[in-house]
């Protein structure tokens, strides 16, 4: 264990670089995050000072403008990275600005923009959110708030805070920044989950469940950070990677710190896999996706998944990249469990939101195969998959918001009620059918290209058994996607059939974007895919570059 010399405490204390010099921070590179943060703070101020009647329009405009502006800034920065370079880090190496981070941030911002459209949808003064979340469900007070038309416009700043956390989560380059990002991302989401307008107790239960399990997993994550810090003497990803190469920080004899590192990797893995929703850390997903207001579910299923995978990829590719042989079996097991169990359980689901939740778990398993590949192709495949899946899943949830049990009723979650939807509203059912086919990975949809890219990367990395499991799991998932299509198009409409409410302009455009992206990314994937896959010619020009995968180190 630790060498017993009197100089040890001094060595421990002197290891972290505590500087008293003020750090230099490049605010231009941080600007996409600062814009979103500023808008969120401004949103809180609006809540305090602007009269209620004018808040919604103001908040929505601010949130949309902020995400759009942040997206433009992200793209500008992507363009300013010199060709052949991965990017740079700033704020003492705690935030990375590289191609991977910028691509994922851009994806998150676009998806958040679409989600905001869904969140803002307002039919006759009725949004998806509770009129006054503090009132007891079913009470007289609640009724009076509903009649008065109260609204929680706090939703918009909360979403912006969550988006900020997601942006930072993908770019965090040391464990502490990553933890803060994790919390900034999660806390608003916990709250947003409990704000559903209908079935409020259910929604609040989901929020509490999400919060408790999330806090639990954060604790694992934090403990893992502590152990890795103990092993490496630093929380910075690049330093951790160097420490692994060197066999641990200087106070360890050769290899004696290995257990610390392994347990640390496992615990950090638990924290991240929880956010991703991989089996066996997936239990929150169906409950939360079902209970949360559907627009928020769309936000979580797309943006949060992108952010969580961004963090997972960065941690395992950069910080733990040197000990790939140690963590690969772990992720291998998790990926297989995820793909098999979630697919099997999903078959038995009777509720559309739960089914989409389990399907999201299965897709997480497919993407994990790309993480296991631990190659530039795997990274590119996973990133493409994330973007493709995000657009499709928002579209699917947007459709869920439109199918109600009756006019002015709650959403019709029961799949049995969806029978015959293809007859009554073919356009809507057709869009959903396209999304489901994309989930199943049918060619000419984005889902096929994504699945193809990750499977190809995993096979190239020698994980063929994993891909075989993935293929079998794909077939199982195809079963329940196709079953919904059959239900919609070939079943007689039920007596108590659902009512499809007219899509407002906001929801309609969210669905339209989803359809367009699903189709375009499926037919012409090259513009996106080519930017992600390292070009062979560049590889030849710079042999054995450490940054061939686009991460800065």
């Amino acid at each position, binding site marked *: *264990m*630790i060498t*017993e010399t009197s100089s*040890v*405490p001094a060595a421990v204390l002197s290891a972290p670089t505590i500087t*008293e*010099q*003020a*750090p230099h921070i490049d605010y231009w590179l941080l600007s996409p995050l600062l814009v979103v943060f500023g808008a969120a*703070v401004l949103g*809180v*101020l609006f*809540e*305090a*000072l602007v009269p209620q009647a004018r808040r919604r329009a103001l908040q929505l405009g601010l949130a949309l403008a902020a995400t759009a502006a942040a997206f433009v800034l992200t793209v500008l920065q992507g363009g300013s990275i010199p060709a052949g370079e991965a990017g740079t880090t700033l704020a003492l190496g705690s935030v990375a600005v590289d191609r991977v981070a910028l691509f994922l941030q851009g994806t998150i911002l676009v998806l958040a923009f679409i989600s905001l459209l869904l969140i803002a949808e307002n039919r006759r003064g009725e949004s998806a959110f509770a009129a006054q979340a*503090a009132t007891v469900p079913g009470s007289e007070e609640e009724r009076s708030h509903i009649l008065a038309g109260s609204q929680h416009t706090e939703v918009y700043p909360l979403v912006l805070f969550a988006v900020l956390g997601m942006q930072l989560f993908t770019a965090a380059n040391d464990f502490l920044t990553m933890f803060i990002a994790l919390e900034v991302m999660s806390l608003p989401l916990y709250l947003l989950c409990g704000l559903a307008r209908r079935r409020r107790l259910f929604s609040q239960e989901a929020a509490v469940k999400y919060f408790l399990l999330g806090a639990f997993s954060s604790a694992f994550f934090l403990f893992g950070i502590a152990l890795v810090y103990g092993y490496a003497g630093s929380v910075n990803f690049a330093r951790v990677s160097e420490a692994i190469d060197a066999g641990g920080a200087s106070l360890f004899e050769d290899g004696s710190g290995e257990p610390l590192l392994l347990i640390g990797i496992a615990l950090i893995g638990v924290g991240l896999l929880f956010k991703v929703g991989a089996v066996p850390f997936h239990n929150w997903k169906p409950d939360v996706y079902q209970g949360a207001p559907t627009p928020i579910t769309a936000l979580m299923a797309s943006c949060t998944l992108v952010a969580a995978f961004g963090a997972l990829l960065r941690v395992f590719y950069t910080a733990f990249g040197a000990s790939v042989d140690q963590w690969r079996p772990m992720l291998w097991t998790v990926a297989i469990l995820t793909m098999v169990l979630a697919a099997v359980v999903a078959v038995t689901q009777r509720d559309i939101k739960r089914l989409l939740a389990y399907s999201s778990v299965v897709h997480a398993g497919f993407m994990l195969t790309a993480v296991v590949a631990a190659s530039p192709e795997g990274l590119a495949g996973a990133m493409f998959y994330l973007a493709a899946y995000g657009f499709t899943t928002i579209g699917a949830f947007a459709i869920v918001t439109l199918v109600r049990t009756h006019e002015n009723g709650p959403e019709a979650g029961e799949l049995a009620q969806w029978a015959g939807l293809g007859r009554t509203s073919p356009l809507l059912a057709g869009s959903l059918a396209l999304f489901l086919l994309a989930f199943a990975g049918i060619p000419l949809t984005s889902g096929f290209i994504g699945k193809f890219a990750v499977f190809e990367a995993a096979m190239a990395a020698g994980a063929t058994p994993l891909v075989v499991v993935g293929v079998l799991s794909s077939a199982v998932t195809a079963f329940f996607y196709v079953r919904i299509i059959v239900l919609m198009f070939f079943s007689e409409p039920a007596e108590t059939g659902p009512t499809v409410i007219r899509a407002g302009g906001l929801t309609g455009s969210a669905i339209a974007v989803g359809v367009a992206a699903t189709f375009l990314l499926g037919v012409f994937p090259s513009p996106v895919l080519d930017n992600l896959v390292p070009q062979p010619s560049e590889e030849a020009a710079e042999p054995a570059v450490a940054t061939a995968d686009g991460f800065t180190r």
Partner: protein
Amino acid sequence: MELYAPVLVLGAIGAAFVVVSMVVGSIAGPKRYNRAKLQAYECGIEPTPQPAGGGRFTIKYYLTAMLFIVFDIEIIFLYPWAVHFDELGLFGLIAMVLFLVNVSIAYAYEWRRGGLEWE
């Protein structure tokens, strides 16, 4: 490992003291209950009546608790800044002002939305 031995010993002694004093007190001490003794202790003032059936605290306590956090957490950041004020210079000053502005925005929100009104 030997480095930590004294800490462990101290911890063991502390735990033993708690256990021993509670056990001895429950065995040796006199037990005479009355109404006042059985009530919840709230710093000597009249205990706030609790709603029947659930023991829920009214939401007002949480609002106050949140207000407490707004002002309490500030100290943790202000103190080290004050200690290293000279070295941090203008950068530190700007950072701290921004931080305080952010905190006061949260305060303004609570104030405007009625968080400070007890009734």
